Every structure is written in C-alpha cells, then in structure tokens.
C-alpha cells in the first residue's frame, strides 16, 4: 500500500481488495463445481476401467488442490522464494511414492499368475 495513504490510494486499495474477494468467491464456486463433478464421475463410472476412473478422479483432485494452494494460500502471488520450499518438497514426495511403484508392479505380476478360480472374482485391484 502506498505509504502516503492519500484518499485516492485508499480507494484503489479498496477496489483491489474487492477484486480479491471476488476471486476468492469464484474459486469457491469452482471448488464446489469440481466436488460435484468428482462425485458424479465416481458414481457414474463405478464400473469403468480402473485407469479411467482413477486417472479422472486424481486429475480433478489435483485441480482442486491446486486452486486451494494457488489462491487461498496465495502461492500465485508469492515471490520466487516459494520454489525453495515447493520444489524439494514436491521432489521428495514424488520419490517417496514413485519409489514404491516397482514393488507394486512385481506384486501384480505375481498375482496375475495365480487367479482365484474358485470364486467369481469382481472388482479386482487395477
């Protein structure tokens, strides 16, 4: 804010605050719409291929989380210092999960060799 605090500056600042409130409300509506979309997506595609179901839901969840981070947590407005926190965290979190993928693949390979033929199997793990 302008340190002189002249009336003109105050009016401009007030308008900018109002525009931020409008942005928050638009993000809120977007989050609600995405939550409804997620709910309907999961409900209507319950029997769809796992990749389509999981992929679609994760994309929607990431968009929602991104909106919260960018606007409500003000990441969109922060300076470059934010990358010092976000990049290592994102890298380590990704490695933590991706490092488990080979294990998952081996387990699924093992399982594919011994299907449960004694019962009608449904909804097996993707």
């Amino acid at each position: 804010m302008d340190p002189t605090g002249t009336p003109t500056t105050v009016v401009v600042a007030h308008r900018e605050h109002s525009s931020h409130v409008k942005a928050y409300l638009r993000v809120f509506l977007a989050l609600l719409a995405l939550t409804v979309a997620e709910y309907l997506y999961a409900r209507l595609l319950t029997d769809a291929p796992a990749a389509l179901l999981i992929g679609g839901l994760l994309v929607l969840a990431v968009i929602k989380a991104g909106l919260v981070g960018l606007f409500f947590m003000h990441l969109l407005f922060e300076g470059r210092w934010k990358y010092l926190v976000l990049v290592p965290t994102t890298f380590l979190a990704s490695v933590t999960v991706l490092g488990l993928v080979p294990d998952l693949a081996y387990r699924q390979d093992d399982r594919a060799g011994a299907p449960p033929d004694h019962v009608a199997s449904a909804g097996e793990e993707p």
Partner: protein
Amino acid sequence: MAETPPFGEEPTGEPHDHDHAPSGAPGRDTPPATPGKVAMWLFLATEVMFFTGLIGSYVVLRAGSPPGSYSNLFPPGTDLASRAGAVGLVLLDPGEDPDKVAALVAEAGGLPAEEADRFVETAGEIGEAVVLVDSPYEPSDVEGWRQRLAEAGASVEVRGLESFAWPPPYNGLVNPLSIDLTALNTFILICSSVTMVLALAAIQRGDTLRLSLWLLATILIGSTFLGIQVYEYIQLIGPTIECSVAVSGWHVAVAVPLAALLLLALLQARKTEGRTAAVVLLSLVLVACYEVVSILGLTADLDAEFLEAIGPVTTALRLDEALYQADIGPIELGHRYSVGVGASGHFRPSSSLFASSFFTMTGFHGAHVTGGVLALTLIWLRSLFGGYSKESHAVVELAGLYWHFVDLVWIILFTVVYLI
C-alpha cells in the same frame, strides 16, 4: 530490504500489504517473504511428507492386497478356497413392517433382538445386507428363509460368493463408507476455507468486526466437519456406552469451559468496543441454544422419524439420553453392518486392513482439524479484544495457511480413500 519486524507484527502475505517489491522480482507486486510465513511453509512441507507417507503406505497396502481378501458373504481374511459354492440371503429392503422382519432376521441369523433391529435399520439405509450364509461350514436353509422374509414384506434375494482384493466403493456388503455424507462434509470444509480467507481479507481492510465474524463462522463450520466425522465414526464403530458410570459429563465438559471463556470475553469487551460485545453475546446465545436443544431432546417425546431426519443430531441426543438415564444400562450406538464389512458387524480398526488404514488416515486428518479449530478459537478470542489490526495480523494469515492446507489434504484423502 525492509527491517524484519518481531513475530506477530510482521507484514503479511497479501499482495497489497507491503511497501516494497522484493528484490529479484522487479515489476511484480509480490508480498515479502516474512520469517513467520517461511517458517509456516517449512512446517507445511514436513506435513506434506507426513501425509505423503500415509498415502504411499495406503497405496502399497491396497495394491498388495491379494485377491479374495474381502468377500460379500464372509468376514475379511476368511479362506474362501473351501467355500466356493456358498450362497447368501441378502436383505435389500425391510418393507413396511421392519419389526416383523427384524424378528425373523434375529431368528435366522441368531442375533439378539436389539442387534437385529439395528441390522434391519442399517440394511434399509445402505440398501443391502447378508442375513445368513449357506456354506459347507454353516449349512442353512437359505431358500426357506427367503420365502419367510418375502412373505413378511421384505425384499430379499439369494446371491453367490463374490470376492475382492479391496472393498470397492458403493458396495454396502463390503464397504460401509458413506460417500454421500462425506461429499457433504467435503463441501462443508471447502466452505470453511472460504470463510477463513474472507476473515483475512477483512482484517487486511482493517475491518475487525468482520474478522471476528468470519473467524467465528470458520470455527463453527470446522466444528461441524468434526461433528460429522465423529458421527461417521460412531456409525462405523458402533460403540457401547456404559450408562452406569456416565453422567452428564458431556455438557459439563463442553458448556462450562465455553461459558467461562465467553463470560470472560464479555467482561473484557465492555472495556473496548460495543460491537465486539454484540459478537460475544451472539456466541453466548449459540451456546445457550445448543443446551436448550439438548435438553428438549431429553425431556420432550420427540417423534422418532424427526430424530432420524435430523441425522447427526440424533446420535448426540441418543448419547444424551444414555447419559441422563443412568439406570437403563449399556446402550449400543451406530450401525450394524453385513458380515463382509467385519466379523463383529462393525467397522473397527481391528476389522480389516482397509479399516485400520481408513481410521489412521482420517483420524490423523481429524486431529489436524481439531488443532486448527483450537488455534482459530484462540485467535478469535484475541480478535474480540482488538488484538489485530490492518497493520498487524500475521497470525491470522499463518493460521489461514494451516487451515487451507488441512482442506487441501482432505481433498486428496476424500478422493483416494472414499472414491477410488
């Protein structure tokens, strides 16, 4: 670079709340990297790793769960190899005479009368539940009971064995989680994020009254989220309340400290501005309303359908009833699920790997929300005494960062645990 102010009085992260653009970002109107904000983001980074660890473990446990771990007719972990030809009688709808159906279910399944009532009630809500199973280990006259239940007006059918590596959503025979209720709760938590960001926007304008009101709204909405989560847990776990030792501890524990805090706030508010007293009085009225509704629930003979219709409050009223009528003995709360959910008919941490994963992840998140509500309550009380101003409100922003992070984590958990 600006001189670093003491913690709690530093400039905040709002884009217009500073005098200088930081070095390294010429031409962009970015807020300064204050020590408090950087510290909070570093803390949130550790929280990201914590929840990533939980979600990563969940993915491994789920993907590594062998086929046949869950089935519609037997408890989780049952060896299905020798039960291949089993069939089960599934109750889809109790019909118009649930009491008669419950009596038949009690006889067929060997359940105590009260458990049979809750079993039929739960089946009606979820849409399906296994009454009894015919297998080499438990021979039963499934067809005979199907006819008797159908004659009593119930909708029933006989189904074969189905197995799953992990309980799929929308399958009430193995997965008791209510996606409808949790989608509503997700909506509620998102609402609290909006009220939190509006509280910050208010104090950035210097509007202390709206800061207090939006903070109060955030606290109430956050508490509602927690209340629904507790309701969900009660329905899933089906706890037994020992009435002989429980007196009106609930109201003493909740109402007395709240009333004391608010009275103190009221006394302080008289020394400051009149409008803060209005906020305090409004809060006192809310607490009083809660007590009046609770007492009405105890003394008035409310219609049972009305109690069911008001959902989560029903459980609170039943709990109140149990607490006040100390001589009626133990009372069981919550749902009574089909056998595929858990051997006991409840969904408890010991029921299955799915159950223990669910309670670990949602429980840790709930603990974070509880911490956030407590922190926001302290901040709200301070706001009533004029503790924040347009120039000094860093704590509000830091608490907001934490609150939005908790919301963000729930968005991921809702998708991973409930929907997928």
